[in-house]
């Protein structure tokens, strides 16, 4: 009981928002650095070269990878931590902030695709097929965003380094303007992220022929499992969108707060279950 309460307090009291900002800056800066040696025409080769050949390349790629992952995680915890304080936010800016979550996720996702190892390649192909399955606008959307089969990683690269970031900043702009972070107050956290990236390399699958099981990025596992049973439009678009819409309406002043909360919990529980299934059921 007491431990549970302690964890709850910690989640509520840690300044996740500050951590978000710090990791966001780290991710942007390290992304620019990694981009100096990344070549979308030779994605796997250039990523491996960054890891193996370029001095400190492994470090900067790892910093980019982990700062982005930490950013996403602290964004979720930040959402949880300030949830009760956000009642006064008007609906529009609140929805914009909720939408930063899927945009951040897409940024993470395209990062995996860009490294173009077997996990990244498969993730890209699956995303392309999901988009194409959207009635009417699907093929156009795919041509706009991915189109990997026809144009390689050109478009994914463009959006990863430019348009999705711009979209993220647009959605978060008001919020970012309001809060500042003093790096010197978070030296320990900053140091930990820098040090962690020094110790742990960012993942990349070695090139080998006999890969019979690809588990995809961790946040994609449940979706990948669901795609086994449902058509791509339902599993890849309707299902994830239902959570985002629920989160937009999950406000304490909303009369349907309770049922939406129950829906969100069932969704998250179901997703966790699917992810576990993806890891253990098909080897």
């Amino acid at each position: 009981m007491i431990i549970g309460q302690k964890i709850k307090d910690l989640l509520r009291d840690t300044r996740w928002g500050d951590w978000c900002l710090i990791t966001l800056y780290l991710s942007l800066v390290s992304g620019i650095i990694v981009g100096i040696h990344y070549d979308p025409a030779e994605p796997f080769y250039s990523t491996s070269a960054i890891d193996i050949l370029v001095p400190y390349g492994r470090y900067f790629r790892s910093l980019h990878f982990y700062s982005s992952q930490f950013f996403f995680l602290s964004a979720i915890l930040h959402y949880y931590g300030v949830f009760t304080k956000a009642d006064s936010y008007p609906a529009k800016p609140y929805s914009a902030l909720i939408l930063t979550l899927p945009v951040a996720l897409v940024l993470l996702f395209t990062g995996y695709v860009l490294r173009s190892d077997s996990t990244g390649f498969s993730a890209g192909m699956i995303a392309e097929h999901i988009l194409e399955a959207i009635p009417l606008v699907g093929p156009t959307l795919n041509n706009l965003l991915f189109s990997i089969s026809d144009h390689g990683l050109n478009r994914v690269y463009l959006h990863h380094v430019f348009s999705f970031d711009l979209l993220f900043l647009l959605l978060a702009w008001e919020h970012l303007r309001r809060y500042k972070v003093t790096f010197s107050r978070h030296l320990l956290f900053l140091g930990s992220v820098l040090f962690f990236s020094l110790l742990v390399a960012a993942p990349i699958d070695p090139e080998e022929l006999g890969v019979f099981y690809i588990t995809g990025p961790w946040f994609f596992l449940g979706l990948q499992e669901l795609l086994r049973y449902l058509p791509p439009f339902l599993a890849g678009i309707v299902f994830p969108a239902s959570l985002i819409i629920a989160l937009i309406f999950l406000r304490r002043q909303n009369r349907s707060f309770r049922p939406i909360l129950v829906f969100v919990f069932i969704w998250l529980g179901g997703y966790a279950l699917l992810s576990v299934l993806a890891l253990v059921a098909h080897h």
Partner: protein
Amino acid sequence: MKAINGRQPAGFTRRTVLFIGSLLLLYPFIRFINHRVPRKPKIVEVNGTLKANGYLAKDDFILFSGGDDIWAVSRTCTHLGCRLNYKEKETLLECPCHQSRFSTRGELLRGPAKKELAVFPVEQKGSPPIYYVTIL
């Protein structure tokens, strides 16, 4: 003008013009992003040695030989496009994403994929032979 029309109608007109304007812009934009340079069939040259009843895996296809026949089966899974791998012991192709299975001739053995694989034409020239596979 202010006194007669007030701000509402002016704002409304401006908004309507903006709306129609962006709709008009949408058309060239959609045409622009949907443009595809017609793809030429890609011909891949393979000059490894292919044993009798053997196989050679390339990025886009696997070249098989059996009896007098040589054929190339696409490695693109018909479910969601992941790259298939060859399970030599079971003589079948399996997808790493959702484990759809196909025979070496491309027939569907197990879903979730619903369609069979593409099979590409192979031309053989010279000796030792060079194989030309046309990816359509």
